[in-house]
């Protein structure tokens, strides 16, 4: 029972890590630009399909596909941001929701048209499969790998935001856009880079997640609420909040499916609504 619990906790943390990678970009763009972007999962899907196509049709090794997935998603994100998203930064939440739902529908249709409606199979490299036994608990190697990737990415993001000039500009723009502009920061450019970074991270997450979440055209819709949930519970704009929310979500979801399968995803939705009652702007959200 105890070993079981440790196993569930471990799987939950791995799942949460994946959610964090995908959602952190959404959190920053929501915090930075106040943009309610329901189509964030579409960028993860772009990364996922990039990975699947490269591996299955061209035989590119899995680890090599990850940076390519990052670049492809970032490029797609940048294109959309510069052409469409940018015009809606000052629009109402309703407009943004409608616009991004439209993007979700289009992405589903395009993915179905291009790759067919079925799940994309991906064979992980051998060294990432199987399990290791640590202190009497079987740990999936791929899940350990996921957690390691997320630790590395979080450290890199933390360094980027806390230690670099660009990070300081992002933080300034999140805190007070006007003052940041007044100090000569090109907020528009910061927005663009941040969006690209967020889409790229989502792409990596989508590629990493094929084995755990699956990959089919309805991916952006199926997991939309999970990504939003991480942001809404963690608080938009807060990386620490997203990390904690993703972990809570991951552990609860895995534990719920393991111990009370008859309740299903209900537990997660209930948890979200219950958490939003005392914390309307998220655990680490700033009250505006």
């Amino acid at each position: 029972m105890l070993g079981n619990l440790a196993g569930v906790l471990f799987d939950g943390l791995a799942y949460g890590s994946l959610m964090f990678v995908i959602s952190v970009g959404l959190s920053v763009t929501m915090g930075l630009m106040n943009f309610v972007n329901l189509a964030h999962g579409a960028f993860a899907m772009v990364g996922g399909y990039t990975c699947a196509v490269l591996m299955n049709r061209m035989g590119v090794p899995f680890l090599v596909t990850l940076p390519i997935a990052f670049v492809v998603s970032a490029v797609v994100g940048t294109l959309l941001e510069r052409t469409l998203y940018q015009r809606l930064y000052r629009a109402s939440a309703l407009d943004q929701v409608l616009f991004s739902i439209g993007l979700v529908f289009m992405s589903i249709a395009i993915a179905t048209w291009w790759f067919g409606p079925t799940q994309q199979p991906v064979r992980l490299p051998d060294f990432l499969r199987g399990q290791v036994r640590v202190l009497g608990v079987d740990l999936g190697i791929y899940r350990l790998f996921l957690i390691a990737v997320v630790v590395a990415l979080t450290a890199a993001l933390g360094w980027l935001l806390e230690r670099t000039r660009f990070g300081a500009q992002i933080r300034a723009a999140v805190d007070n856009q006007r003052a940041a502009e007044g100090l000569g920061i090109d907020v528009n450019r910061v927005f663009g880079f941040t969006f690209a970074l967020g889409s790229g991270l989502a792409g990596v997450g989508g590629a990493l997640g094929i084995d755990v979440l699956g990959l089919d055209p309805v991916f952006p819709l199926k997991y939309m609420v999970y990504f939003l949930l991480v942001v809404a519970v963690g608080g938009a704009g807060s990386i620490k909040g997203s990390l904690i929310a993703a972990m809570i979500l991951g552990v609860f979801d895995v534990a719920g499916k393991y111990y009370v399968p008859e309740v299903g995803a209900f537990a997660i939705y209930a948890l979200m609504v219950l958490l939003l009652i005392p914390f309307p702007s998220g655990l680490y959200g700033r009250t505006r």
Partner: protein
Amino acid sequence: MSATGKAAALPASAARASAARSGLAEERWRPAEIAFWALALLAMFAFPGYRVLGSQILITGLFALSLDLILGYAGIVSLGHAAFFGLGAYTAGLLAVHGWGEPITGLLAGGAVAMLFGFLVSFIVVRGNDLTRLMVTLGIGLMLYEAANKASFLTGGVDGLSGVVTWKLLGMFEFGLVGTVAYLYSFAVLFVCFVVLRRLVHSPFGLSLRGLREGPWRMPALGASVLRMQVKVFTISAGIAGIAGALLAQTTQFVGLEALGFTRSAEVLIMLVLGGTGRLYGALVGTAVFMIAQDYLAGIDPVYWQFWIGLLLVVIVMFARGGILGGIEMLVARLRGTRR
């Protein structure tokens, strides 16, 4: 309304009275409106083969109206309005399955259950900003969907609730396959609800809702209790959505899980925005255009339909805020401007 109560805040009440008067002037039925309803009724005879689709449009139109009330008039964004629609549908459906198939009382029961649920959740919906509201409504919708999915002993789960038997309407008219009774019944319910809503949005309460939408910080300064207004309007809207759901259950004699699904919540939002929010008629026009197009295009290929509807949304947001009716109003205004 006692005179003494109003005398306490004379300037505010005077302003309110004049505002109410300007609102009430709209209350007279215009010829275009009468023509609209006559056409909706005549459509049944003009396209006898499409009565089933027609009653679906009337029902979804009623659902869109309920969303227009909170979104278009009170400015509350919702991504989970299907929760109330589905609740009404399952209430009426379950009543009919378990031996009470009388349509009108079933309709009222569906509306009442949805209304009660709407009242209870309204307190957690209306607080917070737009993002929180979106998430909470989305979460409530998904919760109900999962609950109905898992409680298959009661709802039939993914197979849907079958065995719904609706009794004769008023004890006289049987719901047949041609759909004549279903169409007329849906039409009558929609019309009655519309008249009620029309009165409501032109009443002082409706005007103060619009005030709330335009300036949420000013209304409290005028002495309006924002929370109470929002709870009230949300409750009414949930009730109307429940009636629409019950109507669907009774006329199709089936309740599927998709009555609660996210797609329904999203689509009704799309229909409303397509027609134009805050106009009541926008909800009806948008629903009709959307569903006729869907019937035509999705028949060719559902995937392409999804693509076009996505593109349509992007285009509406980018270029055509106000939807179809907003566009017509602009056109009319421009024509009048040039004529002068």
